[in-house]
């Protein structure tokens, strides 16, 4: 059975159709990529799944439950946690404090939350920074902190919104094994990303979105050879010269 099943989801903003009847299917344990040019509606689709706003129509079923229209905190408690494209750390608090906020999702006790948070920070190799105030972290560290906070809630499905955007190529190379490592612990991942190299090497399956519509889906290598995808990314003239 699929873990996340999105059927004909549409999101309109007063006339503008940001997401247009997109359907997606994510199996448990997979890493699934969503790509598309700027403004294609990827993040809007994400926001619909995570509950930031309800879809105009369509259904989103997670783990057998309809989650379309539920609030973000309800969706998180069901096991779907997201990260933000523009990182939002609790800036005046330490890395450990930030991560403990996530860890409190499953416990009331301070020491237990702390234990869980430290475990996650060790796992992400951020343990040595635990007492650093999060606003003085570097960008890659902040991105990792987003991951740590999200992981501390023990999600079944992790939604990563451009975790690699703004990173240098070497930093991207460092981030890839971390995401794989998270997936290996049994967390299903849906990742929205611009960086093709990253998404190609991570994803088992890719969905391509353009102008709010799904234009291709499937194995990464098939998808990049797809005529519509090349048109969307590079323009019409590249279609013929490719062959």
């Amino acid at each position, binding site marked *: 059975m699929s873990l996340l099943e999105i059927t004909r989801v549409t999101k309109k903003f007063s006339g503008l159709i940001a997401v247009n009847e997109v359907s997606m299917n994510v199996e448990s344990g997979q890493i699934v990529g969503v790509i598309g040019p700027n403004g294609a509606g990827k993040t809007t689709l994400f926001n619909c799944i995570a509950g930031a706003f309800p879809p105009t129509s369509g259904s989103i079923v997670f783990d057998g439950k309809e989650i379309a229209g539920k609030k973000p*905190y309800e969706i998180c408690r069901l096991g779907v946690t997201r990260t933000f494209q523009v990182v*939002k750390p609790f800036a*005046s*608090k330490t890395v450990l404090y930030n991560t403990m906020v996530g860890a409190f999702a499953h416990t009331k006790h*301070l020491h237990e939350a702390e234990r869980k948070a430290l475990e996650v920070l060790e796992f992400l190799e951020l343990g040595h920074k635990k007492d650093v105030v999060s606003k003085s972290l570097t960008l890659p560290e902040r991105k990792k902190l987003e991951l740590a906070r999200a992981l501390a809630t023990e999600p079944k499905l992790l939604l990563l919104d451009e975790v690699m955007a703004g990173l240098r190529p070497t930093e991207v190379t460092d981030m890839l094994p971390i995401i794989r490592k998270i997936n290996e612990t049994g967390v299903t991942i849906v990742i929205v990303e611009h960086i093709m190299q990253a998404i190609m090497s991570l994803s088992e399956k890719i969905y391509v979105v353009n102008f709010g519509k799904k234009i291709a889906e499937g194995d990464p290598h098939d998808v990049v050879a797809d005529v519509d995808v090349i048109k969307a990314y590079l323009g019409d003239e590249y279609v013929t010269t490719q062959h």
Partner: protein
Amino acid sequence: MKQLLNQNPKILLISALLLGALFILPLVVTSPALMQIFILIILYAYFTSTWNFVGGFAGVLPLGHSAFIGIGAYTSTVLFQTFGISPWLGMIVGGLLAAMMGVVIGLPTLKLRGAYFALATIAVGEGVRVLVENVKQVGPLMINGPSGISIKLTENSFSAFQFDSKLPYYYIILAMLLIVLLLTYFMMNSKIGYYLAAGGEEPEAAEALGIKVSRYRLIAMAISCFLAGLGGTFYAQLMLYIYPKSILGLDLSFEIAFIALIGGRGTILGPVLGALLLRPVSELTRIYFGSMLPGLHLVIFGLILIVVMRYYPKGLVEPVKILLNKLFINRLGKQGGPDGTDSAEKAD
């Protein structure tokens, strides 16, 4: 409790000394006028600490807290005047009423952000004042509009919350302040505290981590208003005369916010420090300029606030902590060993 005792022993030692000093202060200060000033300092520290639950931790700026203090004061006073119910009982009833009012007001307003919440609370605070000023009587309950209520005098009596000397008032408010500070400490180190802080800094991120931000803000609001209501009863019993301008006005709400911002909102000791610094200013301006320039203290607070916000946006508690560290802790450290273990041994 364990975490509380796990603090640096030097800090514990200093806190214990300070506490001891506060308890024996009335033995040294015998003038009732001076005692009154100390009582008011502690009372304002108390008011501001209750404000802190919402204004300090939930990331919003309430500017109408006098409404809840006033509800507490009026409830216990009216119950005592009409039915002879002990103000101690009235205090609890007033606190509960204030908490209910806080929740009712908080439900729609706590979803507002920044300035909107502040404006909404000003409106509510002023609304309650105008309402009370225009009501003479509700059934058998005398409110007396703008002229206020003088509390029936009894002799020295614990159950009527009236004492001949200032001493009992001093210890009662000191105990109330300590309880609120302890509550603040425990809240900060609990799931509620973490969730409030998270929701205050980045509500969107907090919601994505499973936190229903508005619910936790509402909890903080209820606690804050309940405790503020208790303080209101204390104020009424201390003054034995309440009128809307004294306890329901914007003056009081603003003074509390000033104390919090200048002392350090969202810290345990900020409200205490703020009250310690600002209360004497308002007392002195009231004594010397009260008839000529009423409200001068708020002007002075405003100026202080501008300077403090410019140089210490988190309030004066930070620089004072650093100063105290330099002055005392290091010196104690030199005498008692670098990590303070020696001083602990000496205590054995």
